């Protein structure tokens, strides 16, 4: 199990003491009763103040000024929408009840408040938190309120909760697009070439040197000569995911950037789970990439790269300048983009001309706001036509464009390409 992250040692934090709301109400009752008793010369009002005054008399002046608090997490890497927990340890103030309430940061949802009874010098609690959007951020602040057993005095302590790296929740993708030509690396996709795989490819005549265990006895009996079964070679596939982070349009939480990151995370996770080699290119203010690789550590690097790239666009860079390592020959290129950046569209055309098999997942789910005037309507119409033209032009050069709404599984738009092998054309 991974060691907890966060503060290594408990931190001494100052406690701000004051009257509790309950004490203020009792004080009001006592003062009002005494004032009325004096003004009206009616002793029963003084008696009315007695219970409140007796409770207020338990006020303590010798309260500790500091308390040791430690906040830790199992891991600072979390996934959006997935619950995480922060462990809070309190050392000291054993005579006081402790109420833990989280003031969550933006886009973080907190669980219910936790109350720790008095009596133990070392107390601990786990607080439930759910980051609802990807990004690097603090989880928020924790307010610990200590109260004495008479509920008269209250001490407040503010604790900064750890910062987390919240990764986008991967889109669901169970199938995978497989190219007809795969590089000669051992993998799990049955290739057209015969080899040592497990998928049956056909039957052929036995030639000296063939393995006897592959003899197909039914075919041998039928033909009268030795025949053996052949199997498809199993190859790996190179996949390069291009995440277009130049635009972020639409409703927060389901914006084009949200969909780009969730889709890219889904594709990376799916293909790496299938033991393919996956690379990632982030198309943003500056280009950043990681060449294809395999394994859990590589997956972590790719997902971290998604979080690290700043948004926006710098016109001084172009996708075609990418080194060969980022775009290995014969790789399948899966692009998640709202197709709003002309430079990316040009780069996609260039990739196609260089012989790459490219599939674009269009995540545009918003339109510019237009007025009700005829001119505005006309402008909206022209914008839509332009968008359609962009997509049509890509389709015409052999770059399929599929729409994904971010709600359904990625399998739905990619179904035409996952059900059969995609023929790589040059």
């Amino acid at each position, binding site marked *: 199990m991974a060691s907890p992250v966060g503060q290594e040692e408990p931190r001494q934090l100052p406690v701000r003491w004051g009257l509790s*709301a*309950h004490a*203020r*109400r009792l004080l*009001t*009752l006592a003062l*009002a*009763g005494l004032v*009325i008793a004096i*003004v*009206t010369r*009616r*002793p*029963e*009002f*003084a*008696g*009315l103040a*007695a*219970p*409140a005054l*007796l*409770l207020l*008399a*338990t*006020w*303590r002046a*010798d309260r500790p000024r500091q308390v040791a608090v430690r906040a830790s997490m199992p891991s600072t890497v979390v996934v*959006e*929408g997935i619950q995480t927990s922060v462990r809070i340890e309190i050392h000291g103030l054993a*005579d006081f009840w402790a*109420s833990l*309430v*989280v*003031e*969550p*940061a*933006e*886009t*973080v*949802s*907190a*669980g*219910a*408040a936790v*109350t720790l009874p008095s009596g133990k010098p070392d107390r601990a609690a786990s607080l439930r938190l759910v980051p*609802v*959007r990807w990004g690097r951020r603090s989880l*928020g602040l924790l307010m610990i309120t200590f109260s*004495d*057993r*008479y*509920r008269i005095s209250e001490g407040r302590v503010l604790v900064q909760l750890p910062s987390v790296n919240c990764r986008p*929740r991967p889109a669901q993708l169970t199938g995978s697009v497989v190219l007809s030509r795969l590089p000669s690396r051992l993998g799990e996709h049955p290739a057209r070439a015969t080899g040592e795989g497990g998928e049956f490819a056909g039957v052929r005549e036995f030639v000296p040197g063939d393995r006897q265990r592959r003899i197909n006895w039914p075919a041998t009996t039928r033909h009268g000569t030795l025949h053996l079964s052949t199997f498809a070679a199993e190859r790996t596939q190179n996949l390069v995911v291009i995440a277009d982070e130049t635009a972020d349009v639409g409703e*927060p*939480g*389901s914006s084009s950037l949200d969909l780009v990151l*969730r889709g890219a995370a889904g594709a990376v996770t799916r293909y790496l789970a299938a033991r393919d080699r996956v690379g990632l290119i982030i198309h943003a203010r500056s280009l950043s990439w990681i060449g294809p690789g395999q394994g859990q550590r590589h997956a972590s690097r790719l997902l971290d790269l998604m979080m690290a790239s700043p948004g926006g666009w710098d016109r001084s860079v172009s996708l075609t300048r990418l080194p060969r390592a980022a775009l290995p020959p014969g790789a399948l290129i899966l692009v998640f983009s709202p197709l709003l950046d002309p430079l990316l569209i040009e780069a996609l055309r260039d990739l196609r001309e260089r012989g790459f098999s490219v599939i674009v997942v269009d995540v545009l789910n918003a339109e510019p706001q237009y007025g009700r005037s005829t001119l505005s309507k006309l402008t909206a119409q022209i914008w839509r036509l332009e968008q359609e033209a962009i997509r049509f032009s890509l389709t015409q050069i052999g770059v399929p464009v599929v729409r994904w709404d*971010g*709600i359904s599984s990625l399998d739905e738009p990619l179904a035409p390409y996952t059900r059969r092998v995609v023929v790589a054309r040059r």
Partner: protein
Amino acid sequence: MSPRGQDPTARNRGEKRLPFPGIAVAAVLAAGTIWWSAAPLAGGSAGTRLSLTVAIVSGVLSIAQLAIAAAAGRDTDAYSATEQVALRVADLVRTLPWAELMTVAALTLEALHASRPWHTALLAIALTGYLFAVHLAETGAGASVLRAQLPLLAAGAGLTALAVGAAALPPLPSGPAAALLRVAAIVIAVVVAGLVLPAWLGRSR
């Protein structure tokens, strides 16, 4: 789940459950206190109606304050203008000390009536009970947290009884009844001291 259907710019300050029983008890005690301090309405002097109005309004708002504070707080900029206004009103209700205002209004109502010591004693019990009910509903704590306060409350009730007795004594004719009351007052004072001293000495525990 993905944040679809949930505003990602929102922050949810804890999933709180509305403590209906606690709020209901506080509401009943508030209503009872106001009614008890105002009755009989015709017996009050000038300003009774104004005090009654203030007590009712502040009593209702103190209960609303409990309900608003208990509701899960969602903070977002994505609300409409009407919702933003409602939020501001809710903030106002949450900020002002309505329970304190109701306490003062109820005591004023009682003071506006002619002296009636035993009536005031019952009001003291009802008001203290209301303030404790508000505290329990506000913190969501169970009644068991008041166990430590019971000796002090009992002592306070004794002192209230003493004060009420003192207020009721002058009209009493001299005789065995008055003597008995004086003895009872001394006994109550001793018991109160016995209850308060251990609690006061042990407050640092």
